[in-house]
């Protein structure tokens, strides 16, 4: 049985311009210990989707569909029941290390909070475990750091503190929401390696949300590509890079700057913009930007089909032809 199963998940926000559909009918599942990458451009619904799975959306959001964790349905379950799964079952590493720590509380208090609340440890045990956690995420001088306030730490150190908090209760499922975007490249690699090591030790499943294809390539078993709130391609990592079906995935990959690009040349971009999320337009949402689009693409939305086993895509004319 899969650890987390999402079917037909949709999220919409009530705004002045009407219902903004941030996530549209996403279905996916994840096994214990498996790592799934979610990629897509800004505003494609990656972050909203990962938060919707945990149920951490603001009050203006409506969530429909079904999310199960170890067979338990989470949608419509009272908050107090879902809370029992947080920390020990599911945990999240947040995007921005500058805002995800309380500025007026010491690091120690914040790391120990979940240990005491969720695991019922006493003060001394929580302090000992917090020191251990900070050492685990390779923060030098853990004891000293526990007494500091967030503003006394650098971005990379805060990010590590957040990882330490997320893994403090040994979660079975980790959501990593762009855990490295706020960091520079050298620290990025370190942080990702730390997460990988910890996951292997605890057999934790992970959904890694990022817009950096380089990051997902090395750290995931499968990749889902999101566009305009939809999952448009889902395949094992090696299969996706070797045999991509979606023109959008191809366009994303092409827009990565390469070493052999001549100096001063314009960086490749995907022309145009994503469709307005408050409107429901017929056809494939990528049609207006797709170099291969035909009248059929503009008129009718393609279904999410399984080409080869485990490789899903949403396109009438997949690259390399339909199998």
């Amino acid at each position, binding site marked *: 049985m899969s650890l987390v199963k999402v079917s037909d998940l949709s999220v919409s926000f009530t705004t002045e311009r009407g219902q903004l559909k941030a996530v549209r009918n996403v279905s996916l599942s994840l096994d214990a210990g498996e790592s799934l990458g979610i990629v897509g451009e800004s505003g494609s619904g990656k972050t909203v989707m990962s938060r919707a799975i945990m149920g951490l959306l603001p009050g203006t959001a409506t969530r429909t569909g079904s999310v199960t964790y170890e067979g338990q349905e989470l949608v419509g379950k009272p908050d107090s029941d879902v809370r*029992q799964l*947080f*920390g020990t079952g599911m*945990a999240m590493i947040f995007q921005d290390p500058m805002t995800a720590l*309380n500025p007026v509380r010491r690091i120690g*208090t914040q790391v120990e*909070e979940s240990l005491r609340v*969720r695991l019922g440890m006493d003060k001394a045990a929580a302090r000992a475990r917090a020191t251990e956690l900070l050492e685990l995420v390779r923060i030098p001088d853990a004891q000293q750091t526990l007494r500091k*306030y967030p503003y006394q730490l650098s971005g990379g150190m805060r990010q590590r503190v957040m990882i330490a908090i*997320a893994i403090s209760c040994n979660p079975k499922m980790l959501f990593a929401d762009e855990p490295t975007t706020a960091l520079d490249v050298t620290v990025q690699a370190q942080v990702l390696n730390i997460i990988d090591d910890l996951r292997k030790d605890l057999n934790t499943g992970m959904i890694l949300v990022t817009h950096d294809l380089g990051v997902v390539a090395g750290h995931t078993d499968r990749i889902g590509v999101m566009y305009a709130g939809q999952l448009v391609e889902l395949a094992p990592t090696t299969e996706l890079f070797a045999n991509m079906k979606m023109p959008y995935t191809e366009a994303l990959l092409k827009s990565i700057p390469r070493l052999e690009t001549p100096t001063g040349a314009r960086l490749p971009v995907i022309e145009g913009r994503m469709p307005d999320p408050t409107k429901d337009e017929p056809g494939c949402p990528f049609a207006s930007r797709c170099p291969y689009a035909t009248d059929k693409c503009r008129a009718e939305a393609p279904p999410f089909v399984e080409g080869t086993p485990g490789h899903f895509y949403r396109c009438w004319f997949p690259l390399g032809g339909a199998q």
Partner: protein
Amino acid sequence: MKKQIGYWISAAWLTFVVFLAIFGQWLPLWDWEEPDYDHVGQTPFTSWKHPLGTDGNGMDIFSGLVQGARVTVLVAVASVVIGGIIGSALGISAAYFRGKFDAFMNIIFSVVLSIPNLVLSLSLVSILAYSDEDRPTTDTRRIMVLILSLTIVIIPILGRIARATALQWANREFVTASRSMGTRNLRIIKEHIVPNVAPAILAIAFLAVGVVIIAEGSLAVLGVGVPNGKSWGSQLANAVIDIEFYPQSVYIPALFIAATVIAVNYFGDYVRRSLDRRESKI
């Protein structure tokens, strides 16, 4: 930040007033209820026996002020603390939970704020602590009702501030982060919102103390405050008829009230300024 001279003056004055309020009853002073018929209407600063002079009945003004400090400080602090706690609790929960409760609290705050506070206190005191020759009411009851009515005035003032400040913090990422680890709402409010909101409330609470002292004085002048010269306001109110002959019995209590209100305002400003500096640092 170097503390300015005004800070030290305000701090010294407030310490003095609070000291009088707490320990004044044990100081070797002239009995405040005992007239001294040999020195009626004595000018201030002319004798050690009555340092601030006496009024038209030979009552010692300083002793009266010491007694008044007790009631005035009690009324001001009690109504701001009680009103502040209730107001902050309502305002912070409204900001945290939003939805219907928030909308409801917003309406309640607006309605209460729209009633002029003197009118509100005036009607509450005259209904709940009505007093005439046939049915006299006790001073304690008067003071209680006064505190109650001023508390009601304070609740929406501090509630609004608490709500507005808490709104800025309630949607911060660290609140979601704490929620994602399974922390209960009450604990999130206690651990993550209150410490961030408290300084702003504290700054306004000082200003509210000033508002309450003025309101207490105004009610006394209108004849519904604490009777019998037991507070600064009522001392001033009692002496108004004598202003022509014994001006000291009016201007000295008035100066005490003014100095105290200026001091709490200055102090509130100081707290707000240090808060701004802290905000820019974190």
